[in-house]
C-alpha cells in the first residue's frame, strides 16, 4: 500500500490562479498547489455544512431520553 494507491482526479483551474497560489504557498507548509487547493476546498465545504441545520429528534425519543437523564441525575 503505497502513495500510488491514493485516488486522485484532475480539476482545471486558470493558469493565472495557479501561479498566484504557487507564489502564495512559498515558505508555508504546503508542498504543492494541489495540496493547498484541496485544503481550501475542504474548508469551504466544511463551513457550508456547518450552516446546515442540526438534526432534530422525535418527541417520543426526546421524552424517553430526558426521562433517563433525570433518573441518572443529569437533569433536574
Amino acid at each position, binding site marked *: *500500500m503505497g*502513495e500510488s*494507491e491514493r485516488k486522485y482526479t484532475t480539476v482545471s483551474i486558470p493558469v493565472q490562479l495557479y501561479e498566484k497560489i504557487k507564489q502564495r504557498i512559498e515558505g508555508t507548509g504546503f508542498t504543492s498547489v494541489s495540496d493547498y487547493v484541496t485544503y481550501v476546498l*475542504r474548508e469551504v*465545504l*466544511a463551513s457550508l*455544512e456547518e450552516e*446546515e441545520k442540526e438534526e432534530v*429528534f422525535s418527541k417520543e425519543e426526546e421524552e424517553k431520553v430526558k426521562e*433517563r437523564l433525570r433518573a441518572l441525575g443529569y437533569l433536574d
Partner: protein
Amino acid sequence: MLPRPHGGRLVNRVTPGKEKEAILAESKELPNINISKDTAVDLENIAYGVFSPLEGFMCQNDYISVLESLRLEDDTPWTIPVVLDVGREVLTEKGIKAGDTVTLAHNGKVIALLEVEDIYTFDKNVHAEKVFKTTDINHPGVVKTREMSNCLLGGKISFIQGVENPFEKYTLCPVETRILFRELGWKTVVGFQTRNAPHLGHEYVQKTALTFVDGLFINPVIGRKKKGDFRDEVILKAYEELIRNYYLKDKAVLAILRTEMRYAGPREAIFHAIIRKNFGCTHFIVGRDHAGVGNYYKPYEAQEIFNEFPDLGITPIFFKQFYYCRKCYGYVNERICPHNGDDIIPPSGTKIREMLIQGKTPPKEMMRPEVAEIILSFEKPFVE
C-alpha cells in the same frame, strides 16, 4: 448551535426491542464468531453513533484509505482503523464468505449480527507503522496489532445487546448528550479527554477553556489500559469529588467513553475529537502528548496534526502544560508566566503517582486534597 454529527447524521444500528427476540431466535442457525470484550464494546459505540459515520467494521477500501490518507474512502476525516480480525481457520471451518450474515458473540452472548461485505488480509507491520508510527514491540498498540488474527471482516452491523457495563450510570450515547446539552442551554461545549484522575494541571486547562464556552464535557476513557494507569472507578470517583467541590453545577457534565486506549498519539487525537463532535461538542482540548506513550510522538505532534483537517467540524483548543508558580501565586503556563526553575511546581503525573503509591498525599499545588483522599481510599488505585 451544536455541530452536526461527523459525516452528517448520527448512526443508529440498534435493533428495536420488538425485533430482538425474533432475530435472536433466527440467529441460532447462523455461523458465529467469538469476539473480545473490547470489540463488543466498540460494537456498541458503532450502534449508538459514537463512531458515526461508521455503520460497521471497515471494508478494505476504507481501511486502506484510513491508513494512507487518514480519511474514509468518501474523504471524511477518520484516522483509526475500526476492524474485525478473524483467523483464516475460523472462516474456513465455518465456511464464512462475503455475502453471509454471521453472529458476533462474547462469552456465549450474541452481541450483534454482521453482514459480511468484505474479507481481506492485511500487513501487520504496515498497519503498526501507519497507525502508531512504529513497529517497536514495546508499544502497546504494536503488541495488540501483532496479536491480531490475519483476516479482516468488513460490513454493517445490527446491534442486539451489550456486554455488562459496571458504569451504566455514567454512560450516555450521543443522542442523550446532545439533548442534555440543549436542555442545559449550552450552545458551545468543550470536550475533555482523559485517562487520568485529575490533578490541578487538568483542572486549569478545563477551566481556562470553560471561560470561553457554555459547558464542559469531561469524558474519561473507560476500558482496557496499560499497567500503571489509574483504574476506571478511581478516575470517576476522583472527578465526582472534584466537580462537587470546585465546579459550577450547571457548567460541567461527567460521562464516560467506553473504548480502549490505542496510544496512537496524533491519529488518536483526531479520533478522540471526532467522537466528541458526535457527542455534540463544538470544541476539543488537546494538551501535551495527547494519547501518547513513551517517546514515540513529539510532545505537541497531536496538536500539529489538526492542521491537516480544516474540515473536521470541531475546533481544537491547544494548551501548553499548566503549572503552579510561586511568584505568580497561581496556576499559569509558559505563555503567561516569565518564571522558571525553583519558582514553578509542575503537576508531574509520575511524581503524583509515586506519592500515591506510597500512600502519601501530593502537595496541594499539584492535586486537590479531596481528590487525593478519594484516590488513597482505594486499596489498589492503579492497573496492575
